């Protein structure tokens, strides 16, 4: 609207530059005055990894090998999602001075919040990959490519929900509190600290042996983050079977903890993950369309409503 004479690719480039400026600003402000600076972003996942490894190896022993790494594989992308969405939700309100006094494309603010979360979590994944090397589980195998569709789904959902909440927070301040509660519940229905395989098992156990069983299992992946998280676990953690329970092992170790079902992750088949991501993508796309529409509709009046 403001630069009608410029081509849309120029606009896109300008917007990208603006977003990168805003991300830089956020990073700079975040680490202002701290002598270790961005190392804190790395320390956080290291400490998490150490604590979870300790708790789930000694306090609640678990059959999953290197449970800390399993947890990290999924929790980091979840962290990105929650950081990005809560950041985006607060972005318009938090920059009220800017929105009210400077004409610029408002979508840059939630997008910058998402970018800011992305930079931080990307650094944290570097820590995880280093840890995977240290534990001799390097993730370099074809399954690593699953990260691409998984990231697409995660970004689609994050963008959609981020734009939606950014706009609705201006309209209704309660949005941030509602979001907090929703994200908390969402965390627990997403297979982050447990394996999605356990969910399948429980569904089967509950007696859903009728034809709808498969459908019900798949409906679990209507939560796009479920598909994303399992894909990350498959790509990075990569331990599909409990040790000693897999088809390649010749003997089951009797009495081995948790060796009740052989699969650790929900499936060995790549197509399973692609299908799960596909279901999630359809949902995420709906969220994205809703988010973009809501943001477009409300953004023209942000300066007035703040």
């Amino acid at each position, binding site marked *: 609207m403001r630069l009608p004479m410029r081509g849309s690719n120029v606009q896109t480039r*300008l917007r990208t530059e603006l977003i990168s400026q805003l991300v830089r600003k956020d990073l700079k402000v975040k680490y202002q005055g701290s002598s270790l600076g961005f190392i804190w972003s790395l320390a956080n996942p290291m400490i998490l990894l150490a604590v979870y490894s300790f708790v789930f190896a000694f306090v609640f022993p678990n059959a999953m090998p290197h449970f800390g790494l399993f947890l990290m594989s999924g929790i980091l992308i979840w962290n990105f999602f929650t950081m990005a969405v809560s950041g985006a939700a607060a972005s318009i309100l938090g920059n009220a001075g800017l929105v009210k006094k400077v004409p610029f494309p408002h979508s840059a603010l939630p997008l910058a919040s998402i970018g800011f979360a992305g930079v931080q979590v990307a650094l944290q994944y570097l820590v995880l990959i280093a840890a995977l090397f240290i534990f001799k589980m390097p993730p370099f195998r074809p399954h690593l490519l699953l990260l691409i569709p998984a990231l697409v789904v995660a970004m689609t959902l994050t963008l959609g929900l981020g734009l939606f909440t950014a706009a609705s927070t201006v309209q209704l301040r309660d949005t941030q509190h509602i979001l907090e509660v929703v994200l908390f519940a969402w965390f627990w229905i997403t297979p982050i600290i447990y394996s999605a395989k356990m969910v399948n098992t429980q569904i089967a156990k509950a007696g859903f042996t009728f034809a709808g069983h498969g459908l019900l299992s798949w409906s679990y992946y209507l939560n796009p983050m479920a598909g994303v998280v399992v894909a990350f676990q498959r790509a990075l953690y990569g331990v599909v079977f409990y040790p000693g329970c897999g088809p390649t092992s010749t003997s089951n170790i009797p009495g081995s903890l948790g060796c009740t079902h052989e699969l650790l992750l929900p499936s060995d088949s790549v197509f399973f993950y692609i299908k799960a991501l596909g279901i999630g993508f359809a949902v995420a796309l709906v969220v994205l369309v809703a988010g973009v529409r809501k943001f477009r509709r409300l953004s023209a009046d942000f*300066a007035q409503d703040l």
Partner: protein
Amino acid sequence: MSENTGEVLGENLSGNTSENLGEVLIEAHGVSKRFASYHRRATSLKERLVRHEQTEADVFWALRGVDLQVRRGETVGLIGPNGSGKSTLLKVLCGILRPNDGDVSVIGRVSSLLELGAGFDGELTGRENIYLNAALLGVPRSETDRLFDEIVEFSELGEFIEFPVKHYSSGMYVRLGFSVAVHIDPDILIIDEVLAVGDAAFQKKCLDRIADFQKRGKAILFVSHSAGLVEQLCNRAVLLSHGQVVFDGRPGEAVAQLNHVLGVDQVESERGDLATVTEMNILDPISREAIDEFQCGASVLVQGVIDWSEPLPAGAKLSLHLTSPADEDPIIEIEPLWHFVPPGEIGPGQSRFEWVIDALPDLPGDFALNLAVHTQDTLIAHGRIGGVRLLGATRRTIGGALTLQASSSPEPPPSDMPNALPPRTGSR
């Protein structure tokens, strides 16, 4: 501001007559903007649930059917009393606010300076803020790189450019903000009253830069409370009042019209039409002729005629003060205040009051002179004369209200005004 600048602009303006009209860069047609009263808006869930309806009663129209055209090469001043919709109009033209009605089309790159430090982040250094601000204004990074040194030089910030701007003074903020705004080569420059903050030398520099913009055929739209600046800089001025364009034309005329808008008006009392200020004059104390230019330090006679419709309650006071043209806050209280009008002494009819101000304050600038009649807590009547311009050599600013001595020389009430009250000389 200085005479020098005036000449530069004068030449420019004469060469920029209506025969070489540029292309229309800003076009607003029938623009209306409505605001809902703040406390009526439900922003929390509870409020939403409790109150479904939004009453129309608390709606306030900030702009009503505004038409405006700004062409390439034009400098348009936007003037009007406070709350007349000037800033709202700028925001609508910038695209910050969406009009409720009407169309706005803006062609070209807009650089806007609506508030001191808008678009700056206090934690970032001046350098980083230049990049952020330019990015917000839609300037590619490569261009900012190219302009960077020039921006810093113009801002005169020197080594402070590496300091976080939270440590900047307001003058430094303006310098940086203005410097970015004018260097990004906009087609349209939109400025709300922010230039008043800088020091005289920098103001001069800004005005030179604006003159340069004018020569290069940019469109400039700015809001100012300074009639002098509008007359000096603009080739057109638009006067807004109550959200409507009242006048659009020559700056001198617009300023005169503004003074008319700000001129003698009346404020109705909450307790009914007790009194009306029907006339106010500023006269030469000796010749008793109306004056329209005032020298600092000169002596003037202020005359006020008040029409009383009912006997006035005891404890009423009259007061005289100078305010800035569009503001209600007194800058200068003129003593004496007339205390405690004795009950019964003022009945229905007209009475004339006179004050002699021995010496106008040494504060060159534009003022409005206000006469207020009030009881303890109620304003009964109010009149004002706008366009009191004090001429003097030095421009000074004062903090807080100043008190000015005035001796009163009440005219003996004519026979048809039996109730005029000899004001008590209350010089404290």
